[in-house]
């Protein structure tokens, strides 16, 4: 295990735990941004340059900002008293999460597929990615374009609705 991995994994786990535990919602959004950034650093560490930068651009630059906007637009609701420490649903949820982790960890540790040695770092250029996007993966790309357009229109319609009524 390399020191970089330990550092990034620690940062990722700490910030994602912070993101779900913080009572103040803005802290949640900020630590979520840190979690996304450390995940992107992990991608870079694994040699996936393009995916890392895409992660930063989309998650830190767009999703985290969107969440911040949503938090500020629904500001009064954020002050609702929330008691995650009480009530049966909290215990059930946490138990399920721990159980799921236990199952996953058991399977991962006992799996033979994980004993794979690390191959030499692949030399993937951006050009190769672009070419395979335009040849082998061109259909998913087109479908994705359609999906994003639909999502943009849908989000705009949802957000506009109130204005038209009033």
């Amino acid at each position, binding site marked *: 295990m390399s020191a970089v991995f330990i550092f990034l994994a620690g940062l990722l786990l700490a910030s994602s*735990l912070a993101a779900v535990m913080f009572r103040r919602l803005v802290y949640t959004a900020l630590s979520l941004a840190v979690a996304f950034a450390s995940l992107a650093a992990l991608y870079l560490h694994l040699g*996936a340059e393009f995916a890392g930068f895409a992660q930063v651009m989309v998650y830190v630059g767009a999703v985290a900002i969107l969440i911040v906007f949503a938090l500020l637009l629904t500001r009064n*609701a954020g002050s609702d008293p*929330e008691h995650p420490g009480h009530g049966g649903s909290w215990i059930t949820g946490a138990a399920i*999460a721990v159980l799921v982790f236990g199952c996953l960890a058991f399977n991962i540790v006992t799996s033979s597929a994980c004993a794979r040695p690390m191959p030499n770092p692949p030399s993937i250029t951006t050009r190769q990615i672009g070419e395979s996007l335009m040849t082998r993966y061109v259909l998913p790309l087109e479908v994705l374009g359609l999906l994003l357009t639909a999502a943009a229109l849908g989000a705009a319609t949802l957000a506009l609705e109130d204005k038209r009524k009033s």
Partner: protein
Amino acid sequence: MSGTPLVYYLLLAALLFSIGLGAALTRRNAILVLIGIELMLNAANLNFIAFWRYSPNPEALSGFMFVLFSIAVAAAEAAVGLALIVSIYRHRRTTRLEGMSSLKG
């Protein structure tokens, strides 16, 4: 380059997934539930990247492409999800999930 075995990446992703799952199950604010879902998606992405990196033939780019598409889909999902939450908030003045259950039988 990192000498970290694959199993650590998978364990990290499993932990991240569980954190996200826990958040999605226990928190009552819809935005926080969405954050939990995003964390779970990211855990899956981490798995894809790790498997791609440790695969015998990384030039095939399958896992890598999956992550690119998944990032784009997640962005769309977050945009629509948050727009829904904001528009529900306008009607109901709440982002708590209990407040949105008027269609429940």
